[in-house]
């Protein structure tokens, strides 16, 4: 069954705007996203350029890894965002299942490909680092395997949401898959503490001193912040396009009915 009122249609009656549901209004979202997008992308790009320059040219080489340590400046932010992006996907899925939030379905569908891209970057750069440092491109330890599972969860979500004739059914199935997959996030995070792995434990924690020289740390933090904003900008742009696509479809459908 299609929903009785298509809130994406510009001719739909306005919904009551109370509490968090004010942000569920696609028109309000489009205006907000349009205002935010240039700032988020510009600041994200500037921070990334500073971080990349710092990481590739300013930061010292590691005493053991030499210049191969610089792969970290791409690998670690990509890994953080792979997990954080999945958390965003899960939150959008929960909002879709529980509150029937009209933007949440589209948000989940648009977050997944971006998250899959960051996960792929994380896996590829990690593999390129692993060969010269460990002596192997890939090993089946708990950290690497759980991140590969994360990549497959993203791909599964992308495929599942697009596998149904009625988009609503796809969104529903995708939301359930995304929420089941949340169990993988603590496994990724704590795999290096719970089990013996080849992958090293975290160098940076909220509680202890960073186990990284400060001259190597600051470009990493710039990269992490810049990559987060780029992730957000990609999702905002994709989501705005998706909302407008829904509106165009609704207008065309209304015109076809009227003719």
């Amino acid at each position, binding site marked *: 069954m299609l929903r009785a009122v298509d809130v994406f249609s510009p001719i739909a009656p306005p919904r009551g705007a109370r509490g968090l549901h004010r942000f569920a209004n696609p028109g309000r979202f489009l205006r907000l996203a349009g205002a935010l997008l240039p700032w988020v992308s510009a600041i994200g790009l500037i921070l990334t350029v500073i971080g990349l320059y710092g990481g590739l040219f300013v930061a*010292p*080489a*590691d*005493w*053991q*890894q030499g210049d191969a*340590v610089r792969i*970290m400046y791409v690998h670690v932010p990509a890994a953080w965002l792979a997990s954080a992006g999945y958390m965003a996907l899960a939150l959008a899925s*929960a909002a879709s*299942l*529980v*509150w*029937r939030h009209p933007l949440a379905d589209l948000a989940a569908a648009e977050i997944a490909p971006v998250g899959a891209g960051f996960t792929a970057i994380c896996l590829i750069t990690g593999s390129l680092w692993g060969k*010269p*440092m*460990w*002596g*192997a491109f890939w*090993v*089946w*330890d*708990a950290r690497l395997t759980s991140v590969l599972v994360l990549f497959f969860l993203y791909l599964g979500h992308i495929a599942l949401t697009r596998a149904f004739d009625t988009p609503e059914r796809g969104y529903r199935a995708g939301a359930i898959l995304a*929420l*089941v997959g*949340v*169990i993988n996030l603590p*496994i990724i995070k704590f795999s290096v503490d*719970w*089990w*013996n*792995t*080849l992958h*090293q*434990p*975290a*160098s940076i924690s909220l509680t*202890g*001193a*960073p*186990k*990284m*020289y*400060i*001259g*190597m*740390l600051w470009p990493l933090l710039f990269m992490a912040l810049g990559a987060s904003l780029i992730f957000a900008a990609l999702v905002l742009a994709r989501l705005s396009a998706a909302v407008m696509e829904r509106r165009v479809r609704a207008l065309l459908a209304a015109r076809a009915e009227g003719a």
Partner: protein
Amino acid sequence: MKRKHRRLAILLAAGLGLGSAAALTLFAFRDNLVFFVTPSDLASRGRAGETLRLGGLVAAGSVEHTTIAGDPAVRFRVTDGRTAVNVSYVGVLPDLFREGQGVVTLGTLAPDGSFTASEVLAKHDETYMPKEVVEALKKSGHWQPGSGPPPPAATWNTLSAAKSGG
């Protein structure tokens, strides 16, 4: 109870059930989820002829390089601080291999308790420091890399002597 509250309750209950199931499964399979066993594990549970991965630190002063029929060969001891195992390996070592470094070796346990490796991987730890910092730590006597893991991060991660020390 409103419908959205019921949906939230169902979601939370499903999450709790799934989380407990996953936790129990992971706990039950904990021995199979490790990538390698430590020398202590090997001493208590290892069976001769078993193929497994052994991991630990390369003991200081234990590395002997030789050649067997023209191939590079190496003998070293892998330790976890309590027990050590003699390892022999024929082949090329990874660049990061050194005394005091973490390694993971794939091989078989011999009846005499020694280990014949067919593959040696270097395990990098979570510390990242430039050469100058390592030199400064060596000079001040705080750390000899061959002896084991580096000192607490707070003692070196903002070391200002780094620039003049090198």
